[in-house]
């Protein structure tokens, strides 16, 4: 084992309403690959952002090469050799590979940028990594895998001592992953400290030396990879006590008709051959880790993104959905995970948002019947117990939970029979959460069919009648609530892909 190069101790970080990191410890050693694991929202990314100077910590210490440090910007961390290779690549698609690697610190010959030298240096980096990329190629023409290699090359060129990989393999092919592992092993043998964030259990076993597990913003523990099993790690990841009662059994009335059937749906890389059925009065949970393709499935189903192939049946009839207009016509409503961008028009009133999808019902001649509009909006405000001073209040002034209720009202006015809730309680406080849950149960009892995408295990176990688990664009399992446990869901969500 190498010596400790960086130590984070008692790191604490709060955002308004969220205690994101609660006295977390982390130790990075020279010549070692450390896996950082945890469910969505466990605090991995926040911790790494604190480390690389994107967030400032509230308390705690970072000791780097024996000295206490605090980086104030990504740039400062970079200059000191602590570099993160992002999941979302920060690239300049129109420039060449070498130009990207050396952006902001070009070699110069007089006033001329020495592209020749930059190409040579980039080539040296690639030779050292043993990958075949032409430094003169335009960045956007490379595959995502190769773009990632370029990011790594950029990190190495900064004299990195610590490189953090944030889910590097998500977009890579098998061969590219092998290549990546080879590079990581090389870097390790050169004495670099490496942090590897991933959800893929098989990779963790192959490439890492130790595993640090986080849960709900706290440090859970660290294991030696080769001495531990997948189950050990999963138990640490999910080992929380569930305070709310999980659902015991499927509440869907027996023999409820299938209202929605999705057959071999394909849409881009993130939705591959997804099939499932949804019954009347059922809450179908969609579980999986970040990037599993759940939102993409919902968006494709709703016509927001184009479908490549596959059939959709509503009430047994095959339908073609090419745009949200089509989906709405067939009675599907979609409540986005990102309400402010896709759900509501924040600068408009509660009433205006409520009638957004049904305005034609509120016309008297050419004019909008504002009385009727306000009346219906008011009815839903009362029915859903939305806290607002009035229906003319701008939605921007409401809390997250109440904004969500306005979106629900929008689809209820439309009489949608199929509702897709994408992370229905994200950014909503605990009290309001329970109200939303109550509402969803009530809607299901009234015969609405609900798809609920959620990254919170407790939410999935508390609400769903059945659970579909997805992993990397594919459906990896389907469970009845009576047989679902945190462990077997997590197992499916992190399943190795053949």
């Amino acid at each position, binding site marked *: 084992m190498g010596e400790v190069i960086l130590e984070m101790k008692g790191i604490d970080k709060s955002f308004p309403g969220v205690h994101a990191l609660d006295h977390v410890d982390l130790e990075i050693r020279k010549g070692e690959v450390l896996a950082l694991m945890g469910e969505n929202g466990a605090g991995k990314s926040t911790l790494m952002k604190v480390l690389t100077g994107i967030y400032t910590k509230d308390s705690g210490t970072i000791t780097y090469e024996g000295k206490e440090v605090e980086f104030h910007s990504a740039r400062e961390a970079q200059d000191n050799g602590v570099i993160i290779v992002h999941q979302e690549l920060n690239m300049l698609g129109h420039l060449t590979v070498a130009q990207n690697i050396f952006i902001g610190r070009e070699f110069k010959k007089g006033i001329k940028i020495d592209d020749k030298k930059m190409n040579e240096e980039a080539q040296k980096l690639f030779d050292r990594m043993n990958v075949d990329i032409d430094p003169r190629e335009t960045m956007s023409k490379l595959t995502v895998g190769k773009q990632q290699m370029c990011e790594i090359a950029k990190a190495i060129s900064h004299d990195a001592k610590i490189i953090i990989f944030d889910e590097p393999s998500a977009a890579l092919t098998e061969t590219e992953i092998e290549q990546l592992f080879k590079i990581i092993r090389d870097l390790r043998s050169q004495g670099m400290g490496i942090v590897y964030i991933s959800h893929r259990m098989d990779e963790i076993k192959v490439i890492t030396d130790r595993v640090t597990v986080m849960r709900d913003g706290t440090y859970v523990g660290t294991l030696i990879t080769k001495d531990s099993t997948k189950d050990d790690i999963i138990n640490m990841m999910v080992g929380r006590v569930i305070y709310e009662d999980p659902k015991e059994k499927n509440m869907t009335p027996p023999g409820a008709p299938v209202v929605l059937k999705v057959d071999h749906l394909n849409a881009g890389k993130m939705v591959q051959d997804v099939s499932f059925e949804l019954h009347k009065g059922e809450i179908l949970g969609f579980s999986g880790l970040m990037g599993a393709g759940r939102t993409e499935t919902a968006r494709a189903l709703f016509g927001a993104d184009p479908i490549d192939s596959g059939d959709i049946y509503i009430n047994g009839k095959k339908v073609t959905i090419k745009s949200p207009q089509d989906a709405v016509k067939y009675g599907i409503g979609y409540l986005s995970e990102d309400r402010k961008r*896709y*759900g509501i028009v924040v600068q408009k009133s509660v009433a*205006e948002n409520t009638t*957004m999808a049904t305005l034609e019902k509120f016309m008297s001649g050419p*004019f909008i019947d504002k009385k009727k509009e306000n009346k219906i909006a008011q009815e839903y405000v009362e029915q859903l117990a939305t806290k607002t001073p009035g229906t003319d209040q701008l939605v921007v002034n409401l809390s997250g939970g109440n904004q969500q209720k306005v979106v629900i009202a929008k689809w209820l006015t439309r009489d949608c029979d199929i509702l897709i809730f994408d992370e229905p309680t994200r950014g909503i406080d605990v009290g309001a959460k329970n109200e939303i849950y109550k509402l969803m149960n009530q809607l299901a009892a009234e015969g609405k069919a609900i798809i609920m995408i959620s990254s919170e295990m407790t939410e999935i176990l508390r609400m769903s009648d059945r659970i579909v688990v997805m992993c990397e664009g594919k459906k990896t399992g389907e469970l009845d609530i009576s047989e679902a446990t945190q462990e077997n869901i997590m197992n499916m969500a992190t399943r190795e892909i053949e």
Partner: protein
Amino acid sequence: MEKIKQNPFVKKVGFNRIVLCCVLLLMYGLFCALTGGSFAGMNRIMSALNYAYFLGFLSLGVTFVIATGQIDFSIGPVMFCCALISGYTLTTHGISMPVAFLISILVGFAFGLFNGYLVAYWSVPSFITSMASMNIAKGLASVYTKTQSVSWPQAADPDNGWFRNLVRYNGVPVGLVILLVVAVVCAIILNKTRIGRYILCLGSNKEAVRLSGVDVKKWEMLAFIICGVLVGMGAIFYVSAYTTVQPGYGDQYNNEAIAGCVMGGTSMAGGLASISGTIIGVFIIALLQEGILALGFTKDYQLIITGVIVIVAVFSDVLARRRKN
């Protein structure tokens, strides 16, 4: 300051609009003082009103486009194109006056359709369509009129002279009445119909409206078409006031119309528009134009002042949005 803003009357009328009205009155007072009272005469006011009529139509039109978060700065040349094509047809082919009006509005409609279709259905940036339309309008008008200016009939003309009563009849500013009526109609469209609702909402958050199952492309195009029709109507009032139109001009009115609109509280970012604000803004620009001439300055000062007004108005909107975030 906050206290004034919270006053129920101020809240109802709108703080911005009250400030604009004060500006309008102050400007009037200032011009009267500077010209030693000669500005107070009815002639100056009538002249300013003449200017406000056609500019009002342009400004109302562009308000709809800006409300969607887009821009149209082809409106000035398009207005001239409308006036030239219909006027030339009128004087050389002897069509009747109502038909000429119809042609003018149709030409405006066609340009609105062209711009709107490209922006909404092909995602061509609206500044590109504006530039292209501006030149197409100028070129088309020049080609059609063989680069001759067109004079609409004089008031004395027994057959067609009546149309000049559109701006003034026996000293009554008929144009003002018509402009205000059209403004009321625009306000109704913007605030009480589906078109207006969707235009404002999609200007605020297009994706959310699309995901509500609304055909956003159609409504976005409609905003441009409304603008085009209003520009076509503006052309009629331009010739009613000034009779003669020359091909190759009209650019300066773009900025003045946009200035009236953004001054009145319509946000360049889209989603927020005020018809009454636009109208007051237009009166300010028209009064400014008249005042500058009355003080013996040339039209050029107007160009500069309008440019600065737009920059200041839009920048304060940018600042307001920055503060909110």
